[in-house]
């Protein structure tokens, strides 16, 4: 029997083509990239165990666990608030790692329930001078710089689908940078929606990137 090869396929593998899309008259107003090599673990505190979970998260990821809609970046990755007493730990994937829970299980044993969502979500990076205008077409969340500062996060719905949206440090040119986490099965459809929303500003689809 032939040896089996396990190629990972992103839900955007077939719709995602790097390069210029939409209006091309001026510099692209929106830049979009898919981020492929990440692990995402949902950490859900058990009853009465939030403070223990926060402590364990701090110990493991080196940053304070957020207690309100925020994305806290540390060396190991991003701790994303995903609901009351819930965290999503977003970390870079090492190689072909397929069991991200293993590294966390002991640390959270008895105090949290863990669920691997690394394949349940598709992660996008949206930036550029017109990123906010484009997101205003798909998101009802107020993304004004003052209202939604760097580090702010939202569990929200985009095109009737649950998603997580957060803001990271601005790009070098001062334009805002957003990350968007969407359900894998919806990613293909949502990608089309995002491209349509950004088309008038010109889009630069960037090659898939790491976290």
């Amino acid at each position, binding site marked *: 029997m032939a040896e089996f090869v396990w190629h990972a396929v992103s839900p955007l593998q077939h719709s995602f083509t790097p390069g210029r899309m939409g209006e091309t008259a001026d510099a692209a107003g929106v830049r979009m990239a898919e981020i492929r090599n990440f692990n995402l673990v949902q950490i859900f505190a058990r009853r009465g165990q939030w403070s223990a979970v926060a402590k364990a998260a701090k110990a493991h990821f080196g940053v304070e666990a957020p207690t309100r809609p925020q994305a806290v970046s540390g060396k190991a990755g991003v701790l994303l608030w995903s609901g009351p007493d819930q965290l999503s730990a977003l970390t870079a994937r090492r190689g072909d790692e397929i069991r991200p829970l293993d590294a966390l299980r002991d640390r959270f044993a008895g105090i949290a329930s863990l669920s691997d969502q690394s394949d349940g979500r598709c992660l996008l990076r949206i930036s550029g001078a017109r990123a906010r205008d484009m997101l205003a077409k798909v998101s009802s969340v107020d993304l004004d710089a003052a209202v939604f500062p760097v580090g702010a996060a939202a569990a*929200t719905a985009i095109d009737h689908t649950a998603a997580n949206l957060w803001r990271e440090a601005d790009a070098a040119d001062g334009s805002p940078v957003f990350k968007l986490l969407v359900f894998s099965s919806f990613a293909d459809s949502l990608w089309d929606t995002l491209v349509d929303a950004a088309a008038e500003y010109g889009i630069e689809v960037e090659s898939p990137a790491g976290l």
Partner: protein
Amino acid sequence: MRIACPFCGERENGEFTYLGDAKPQRPAMVALDAGVGASGEQEAFYDYVYLRDNVAGEMSEYWYHGGGCRSWLVVQRNTMTHEISSVKAAAGTGAAAVKASARS
């Protein structure tokens, strides 16, 4: 309509799903040896499942923030004006420890 989720902040009502009046209390689970066919069991469930005050005015009701943090909320809303006066989390959102008798 906009609902101020106590966890997420104010969001548009498309993110939420409505269940209904929060007043009817589900009769408690019973140990079967004591409970099977207990008199009044069906009447109590009839009341819970089917009868409604259908309040014209301030009503407390269950909404689910399914398009957000997946919390069940107790929303105090006026059915005549749609005005919302308060939004609280249901007893069992998050990880707070709740005694069986302590829930609202």
